[in-house]
């Protein structure tokens, strides 16, 4: 085969896969801009002939509060989880200095725990979690949802940051240790600033995960006032005979923030995913 043909086939295969992969987001973007009239006459894969924001206007009223609620939850959750996780990760890093039996057992146990918290089907803690939040008097409060999310996302932060911190050169920390600097100070002054790209990856990963978390707000919110966007869109499931432009407009409003983050800072999210899998050299 001639190289030109080979290269074109190569790109053709990738283009076909990309088109297939992009169909859902294409449907989401075009259908939110259809007018009610056009919805009843066109299928979902045909773009609108006229551009209408009617559907966005009609769903925004009921989604504005959930969007705000999600922001109020996600911003503190992600910053706290990524920062406290980073602290924990530096502790693992210092543990790996001493090769004593005790510290290696301790690090195995702690690391298993944070991995459990990261990967467990968190739905399985439904009943004790609900009870804990109710007993703390935090049902239907921002604090309750944030607390519940931190149970899972601080360990996630620690796991991801462990991967990023482990690639820092030892000599930097060694030098500070010899000067008698405490570990807390070393973390704040040296390790944290140096692992800033890793911190951003961890932060973005947790923002997207917590924004999209469906189950925790589903069980810990019982009043419509406190609904988060991930759960609020469920009202637009519809069924046959309902107008789908509303569904897609709601879907778009719920996805616009994570999608925008993914489009502009996607490389950080991807590094976060790689760290989740156990790192790759120099992530």
């Amino acid at each position, binding site marked *: 085969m001639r190289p030109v043909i080979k290269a074109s086939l*190569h790109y053709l295969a990738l283009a076909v896969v*990309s088109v297939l*992969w992009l169909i*859902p987001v294409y*449907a989401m973007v075009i259908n939110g801009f259809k007018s009610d009239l056009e919805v009843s006459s*066109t*299928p*979902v*894969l045909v773009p609108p002939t006229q551009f209408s924001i009617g559907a966005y206007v009609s769903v925004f009223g009921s989604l504005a509060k959930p969007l705000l609620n999600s922001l109020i939850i996600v911003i503190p959750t992600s910053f706290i989880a990524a920062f*406290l996780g980073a*602290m*924990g990760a530096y*502790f693992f890093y210092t543990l*790996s200095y001493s090769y004593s039996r005790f510290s290696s057992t301790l*690090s195995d146990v*702690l690391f*298993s*725990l944070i*991995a*459990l918290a990261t*990967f*467990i*089907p968190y*739905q*399985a803690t439904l*009943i*004790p979690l609900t009870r*804990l939040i109710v007993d703390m008097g935090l049902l239907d409060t921002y604090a309750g949802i944030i607390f519940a999310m931190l149970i899972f996302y*601080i360990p996630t932060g*620690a796991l991801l940051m462990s991967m990023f911190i*482990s690639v820092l050169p030892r000599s930097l920390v060694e030098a500070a240790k010899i000067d008698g600097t*405490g*570990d*807390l100070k070393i*973390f704040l002054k040296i390790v944290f600033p140096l692992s800033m790209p890793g911190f951003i990856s961890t932060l973005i990963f947790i923002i997207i995960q917590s*924004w*999209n978390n*469906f*189950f925790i707000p589903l069980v810990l919110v019982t009043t419509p006032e406190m609904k988060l966007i*991930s759960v609020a*869109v*469920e009202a*637009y*499931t519809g*069924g046959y005979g309902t107008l789908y432009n509303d*569904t*897609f407009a*709601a*879907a778009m409003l*719920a*996805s616009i923030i994570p*999608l925008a983050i*993914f489009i502009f800072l*996607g490389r950080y*999210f*991807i590094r976060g995913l790689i760290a989740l*899998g*156990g*790192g*790759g050299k120099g992530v």
Partner: protein
Amino acid sequence: MKKGTVILVVPTALFSIILLYLVLWNAGVSFMNWSLLNPTPSLVGLETFVSVVRQFQFSNSLVHSLELSVSLVAIGNILGILLASLLYFLKSNGARSIFMSIMIYPLAISMAVNGLIWLWLYNINIGIDWVLTKIGLPQFPWLSSTSTMFPSLIVVSVWAYTGIAALFYLAGFMNIDKAVVEAARLDGAGAFKITYKLLVPNSFNSFVISTALLFLFSFRIFSLPFILSGGTTNIFLQTSVLYMYYLFTVEFFSDATAVATIITVIATIVIIPYALIMIRRWIRR
């Protein structure tokens, strides 16, 4: 160890211990008989497990969960290798990262929203079937037939999660010494031969990571079948986590915790060895 050092780990340890407490509390209740009908629970040993395991819905939903995970692991790994090798042989780094992003983007959208979108794409009059009939193919029933419902769920999961496998295989391929690949190419090996003789056999780590992550993610998929089936009671789409949530909503609390315990045990069997392999490789170098 100094006090300042210990303070570093307190938040992580505290929240991890809360999680452990939740898991153990859950396991404890699964040995009781707490439900709406019985508000003052007492210890009953394995009785709850025995009665739960005998339910049709339990085995039905567990089989669904395992089928979903096994299908996703199998399809995800195969497609992941194919896509990663297509990306590996691209000359342009820019093109590679754009194609990679297109395969990963479903993970940036919530599964609930993905479910909403796919509900309409699966509509037999105006969804994908409209295109199929336009080009003269027969309609596919998707969610409107009980036999194609579950495969339709697998299709969405494959679309959502295959990017992970492609990403880890690509990372694995990129770690293989370029000089070796070049030498093989000079010896006249084609892209296909390089992939299955050189790249794939040297990517065992990628295989382990993809398999573990695809299994763990698919095992806990909740919102996708929840939205696609419009609730928790559709037995053709009910997975273990959905069934557990259903038991909770009808207030069979101990039954729900028993299912949750079984789910946790299955996930833990994968998580702990995986975590210990990861720690040995990356933290203690």
